[in-house]
């Protein structure tokens, strides 16, 4: 490959990389509404609750499997299952509250104009 062609390839790769990496900034500069809030902090609370919900579901499934394979007696399983379901419901209520808050925020930031 000749020297000139090598420089052309380098220029092309560099240009493509710059356009690709900075594209979200261009889009945001065009589409951002004044005063619009970031989604970072809102999503994070939801993500935490979703992770907790998945972990609790997994714990419920594990408890049931432990019971079926004889590692938990009927009484122990019933007590454990009851308490886990209670914890799961608390997480689901938390998720409900977060989603409701997000919906309120969404409607509040709609630009009437």
């Amino acid at each position: 490959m000749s020297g000139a062609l090598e420089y052309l390839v380098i220029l092309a790769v560099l240009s493509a990389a710059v356009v690709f990496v900075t594209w979200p900034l261009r889009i945001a500069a065009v589409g951002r509404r004044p005063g619009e809030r970031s989604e970072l902090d809102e999503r994070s609370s939801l993500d935490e609750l979703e992770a907790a919900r998945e972990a609790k579901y997994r714990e419920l499934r594990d408890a049931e499997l432990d019971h079926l394979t004889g590692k938990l007696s009927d009484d122990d399983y019933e007590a454990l299952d009851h308490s886990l379901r209670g914890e799961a419901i608390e997480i689901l209520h938390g998720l409900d509250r977060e989603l409701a808050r997000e919906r309120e925020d969404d409607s509040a930031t709609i630009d009437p104009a």
Partner: protein
Amino acid sequence: MALIGRALLLMCLGAAVYGIGASVYGARRGRREWTISGRRAVYALAAMATLAFAILEDAFYRNDFSFNVVAGSSSTTTPTFYKLAAAWSTQQGSLLLWVFLLSLWSSLILFLVRNRAREITAYATAVLLGFMGFFTALAVFWANPFATSATPPAEGAGLDPLLVHPSMMIHPPMLYSGYTLLTIPFAFAIGALVTGRLGAEWIALTRRFALAAWLFLGIGILLGARWSYTELGWGGYWAWDPVENAALMPWLCITAFIHSIMIQEKRGMLKVWNVSLVLGAGFLSILGTFLVRSGILDSIHAFGASTLGVPFVILLAVMATAAIGLILWRREQLRSEARLDSLLSREAVFLLQNMVLVAMVFVIFWITFFPLISQALTGTKVSVGPPAFKPFVVPLALILVLLSGIGPIIAWRRVTVANLRRNFTLPVLGGLAVLIWLLLVPGGPSSRPFALILFALAGFVLVSVFQELWRGTAARRAMTHDIVPVAFVGLIRRNRRRYGGYIVHAGLAVLLIGVAASSSFQHSQDVFLAPGQKASVDGYTIRYVRPTESISPEKIAMGAVLNVTKGGKHVTTVTTTRNFYPSQNPTDGLVGRFFDTTDSDSEVGLHSNLRRDIWAVIDVDPTHLAPLINQANSLFAAFAPQVMTKAAKLPPAQAQQAVNTLWTERDLAVSEIARRFVTHPWASEFLLIVDPMVIWLWLGALIIAGGGLIALWPVPSLARRRAATAASAPSPARQPAPSPRVRVREPV
């Protein structure tokens, strides 16, 4: 092409620096477009690193000796298969491999979590780019793989013969994949600490990558052990070499993490412990790379020695300071949400197992670094060697095996006496049966208490895992009425993490049976044999039948055919060779360079079955050929200049013919001298080993890898749910409205 390669490395460095800035700025200011731009910098870096790595591989493939790394570690006679692997045998190529692999894994996780945990992910992106930037900077400023020479040699130096082994194609990329994957949970843990979001979220994001790191690193370690066993010619698979230990330490650490995160997920406990483990594993992975690449400790991996020590020490210091500082800063949020309900629970077993694993890491770390510590304190480098490890590691390994059997059969939170009796009776009986059987076997392992205990414990583990699989299958059959094989497969498919883990435990038991048997009951002999002579090892008669010799452009191989018999009956025939590679040392002489022992290596003669390995290696001493070699050297030293002088005066075609004739004569002389090993054989040194049950080690490794893959594979229902969520987005948070009744679909 080298120019493009150098430019790509600089662009990678630029992308890393920009991406760090964009991610941190976006996270601090809550500007999502900047965090996305930072993530895109990782994708761009991955694309450029891939291109750069492809250019380097292409240079090796084309024998482009203008690249210094190609000239230094490949040649026209290197087989294509090994030319491609030669890239990571060099310092420069391995640094580029690090950047390439880390950028690919980072791109994968950032793509998978692009709509989740955005704040944590933004900081994790910056940390990952920090690692990529560091290794790219090393490649740019310290060891550039695209450095070229204005006057390239006509032929390269060739690949280090010790690296000419099939596992070298896979072993380093596996280890490096493990090391690079370990930085992903490290980065997300840092992100969680910075943002203070220390719940189950960051663990859910990175658990699978931690498991992948564990799997890749484990496979890499075992491939290295296999290479050591079949290539190095010392008769073992594990030498407690610093570089081996460097890979083992993060593997032990991440093994502990994989278990203890289950406690955090279920109970909100051990948050400090988990964060410390994952940060420790990340730290140890960089330390491992440092040990391979710096050469600060004497190692069989001396081909990796270099002067990259200072930048690595700075990086390690920054990592340690940041990790400790962040943990202290967030100590309040890292408090446990619950306490242990009972010391007889799976949580307690996991905790104890974690402590054993961490104790192992401390022991290995201390003994590995003892030469440096002693040098720092006393000025004298004291090496303690492999015997120092065993008194500590063996008892800890025994406790670990016991716990790996208890873990699967004990329940979370609490157990009752009735449940204990129901779950432990069969496994304990299994272990006792093995113990009694071995004690009663005449000539059994009763003289080796550690091995005896390990065999009994392995029996306990195998029965406990079998019992769990059987009971799970029976439970599933009761629900689905499937036949046993279908119920078994269905059980594993729906509970991959749990049963994949149990299979790993069974594999560990099988592997340790192999380790205990082969290390406790090995018989070996170091003997000198001439053709026709024989030696006896552990009841086997090994006879040196005849010498062998072969010459190829890459090497001269001198070996022996050995016949193995027991009680007069033929068992097997094995062949072992010693390979001599042409040296570049001019003082060896024109003929002597083909018999240089500096880079010589062995091919092991191996007969393997479930009961034992018969292992043999020959060490041919070519000094017996010294008089002939010296004579030929003198002859050609006088003759060659005359031919060259004469050739310089001839037309090019005739000159070439004259030089070719000279080299043909030289090759004939080399061939005739080498043939003396067959026509006038002399006694050679042999290391002969009869080693029981070594193959169990490799079988155990395969079972572990299989269990790891099962645990790693995505659960079908989760995969479907994720796909459905993505398809119905505006936001993945919008799950169906939660019902007060919690239902869990098809639990078994």
